[in-house]
């Protein structure tokens, strides 16, 4: 077992840190306060190859690996949870399914602009009645009389990047089928939908507790015309594509949680070494020392899980349970560690003058989206054969 990063990964970490410190951190507070999508930052990240890290150069990617991508999300999240999730959702939920399930034509058409950040990607699975229960899909896709287009009707909610995305992976019901046991189930398929397709619109923008600069909106399909050529994978493969996509996405969200927790530890170390109470720096109190030791240890354990899942995906090993464990552990660790950081800051931690309250708000969502912690436990236990 080799716990060492490659020379390239070490150099990447340095570059991500420089970028995060100089370009992302100075805007993080404003992005949170104004709920403004950091478009300029996304443009810069696109130019530097951060929007297509682990995809081959022939499609416009940076030619890197999955761990290098996770490290990017981690470093961004240390200073801004919003910017981190923009990269994660774009990469894992839109670029990855097109790369992994798309036809050569689809890859050539969509990936170059997505991977260079000229276009932003999003993923639409969740509906008002279908969150954790993905089989509850109501959005339909019906082949029109010409047989050339699918007509989509329905809506999706809580879609990350929706307000600014150009390309969406949309999951919809295309008919009925039966499962292995002969029980009738919905036939679900995946589609690549462009923002400009007739009948497509972006609806309500959600006001959120954290990651406030990320654009989370409703997608509305009213007789939306999607060319047949935009079916992703085969008909009826949508559920599998969605689940595989979420497996990959969990590495991104786990990395986001990891970065948020690590960022809070960094802030807490800095603050407790400066803050004086009872004539001593509060870092001199054993309670502070033990708290920070525990916080760092939890995040270090999370890092091992996240990096291990990323390496397994890179090596084409089965990583589904690893991604679920990484997300479950990193998300819960991030929520706990950011909350403890606020406590170490005392009253100041509760103010918006310091970043730890933002980190605490941002961390909570990592326990919820791309599969709640409860769903991760379901995935893990099913891999253990406990059912």
């Amino acid at each position: 077992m080799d716990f060492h990063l490659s020379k390239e990964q070490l150099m990447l970490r340095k570059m991500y840190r420089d970028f995060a410190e100089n370009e992302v951190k100075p805007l993080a507070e404003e992005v949170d306060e104004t709920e403004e999508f950091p478009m300029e930052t996304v443009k810069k990240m696109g130019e530097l190859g951060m929007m297509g890290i682990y995809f081959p150069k022939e499609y416009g990617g940076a030619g890197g690996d999955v761990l290098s991508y996770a490290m990017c999300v981690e470093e961004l999240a240390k200073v801004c949870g919003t910017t981190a999730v923009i990269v994660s959702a774009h990469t894992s939920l839109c670029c990855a399914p097109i790369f992994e399930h798309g036809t050569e034509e689809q890859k050539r058409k969509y990936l170059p602009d997505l991977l260079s950040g000229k276009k932003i990607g999003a993923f639409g699975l969740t509906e008002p009645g279908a969150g954790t229960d993905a089989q509850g899909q109501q959005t339909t896709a019906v082949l029109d009389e010409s047989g050339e287009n699918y007509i989509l009707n329905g809506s999706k909610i809580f879609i990350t990047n929706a307000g600014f995305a150009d390309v969406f992976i949309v999951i919809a019901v295309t008919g009925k089928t039966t499962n292995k046991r002969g029980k009738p189930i919905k036939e679900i398929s995946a589609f690549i939908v462009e923002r400009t397709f007739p009948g497509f619109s972006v609806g309500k923008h959600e006001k959120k507790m954290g990651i406030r600069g990320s654009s989370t909106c409703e997608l509305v399909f009213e007789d939306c015309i999607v060319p047949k050529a935009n079916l992703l994978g085969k008909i009826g493969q949508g559920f599998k594509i969605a689940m595989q996509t979420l497996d990959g996405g969990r590495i991104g969200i786990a990395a986001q949680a990891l970065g948020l927790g690590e960022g809070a530890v960094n802030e807490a170390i800095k603050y407790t070494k400066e803050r004086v109470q009872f004539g001593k720096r509060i870092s001199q109190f054993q309670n502070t020392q033990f708290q920070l030791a525990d916080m760092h240890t939890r995040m270090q354990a999370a890092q091992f899980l996240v990096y291990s899942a990323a390496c397994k995906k890179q090596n084409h090993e089965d990583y589904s349970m690893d991604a679920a464990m990484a997300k479950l552990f990193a998300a819960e660790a991030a929520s706990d560690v950011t909350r403890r950081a606020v406590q170490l800051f005392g009253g100041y931690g509760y103010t918006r003058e310091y970043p730890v309250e933002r980190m605490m708000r941002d961390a909570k969502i990592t326990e919820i989206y791309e599969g709640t912690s409860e769903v991760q436990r379901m995935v893990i236990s099913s891999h253990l054969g406990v059912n």
Partner: protein
Amino acid sequence: MKVIVCVKQVPDTSGKVAVNPDGTLNRASMETITNPDDMNAVEAALKLKDETGCKVIVVTMGPPPAEGMLRELLAMGADEGYLISGREFGGSDTYATSQIVAAGVNKIGVEKGDIVMCGRQAIDGDTAQVGPQIAEKLHLPQVTYAADIHKDGDDITVKRMLEDGYMTIKVKTPCLLTCIKELNKPRYMSVGGIFEAYSKPVTVLDYEALKDDPLIDPTTIGLKGSPTNILVSFTPPQKGAGMMLEGADMGTCEKLAGILAGKHII
């Protein structure tokens, strides 16, 4: 056409500066970075590459770990690196260093149309001598303190920034320019560039490789060949934060005069 950029790995003096008991810098205990002004020179070269497609070569003299810095510059977009490294070169002052680096640049070859770029000065020594000395050794025209560079055919127009104004100079290539931070904002390494950086060529030029150059005289290189004696190294005292007063009215003038009088400056 090519641009050869001379760069130096320096201790990061933005953090804690460690000084040995003998007054010299304790380099081993400090993080290293590419000298900031040299980064501006690299960026200027990469901008010329963006505009003209020219080749960018980065050259440094230093111990073997300096290769890491060259790889980072290759990740920014430079095409090739040269590491001048050898025990014989150790302890060189600016006089000896410029001879050795000039010999290295000679080895690469300076042709018509080429530009050699350096940073104005390094943050560890603060001499601003190496760039001009390299130009002298290579018999190249030099323009120092470049704050703006335009290439038009074989001519380069350079805006020099001086303490009391600007000077615009037109110079023919090949030439040497020293660059200042006002010239540009250095770009980041790119993700794709990082994955290419280790497959780009880095050539090590040791004493054997350079010894036939007339500039390499064993009596004028290395510690023994360096006429400079360092009496003491010290961290310059921190300057206090400046104060800006805005306004062209009598009230502002009186306020300024009051502050200066209060500090017994006037």
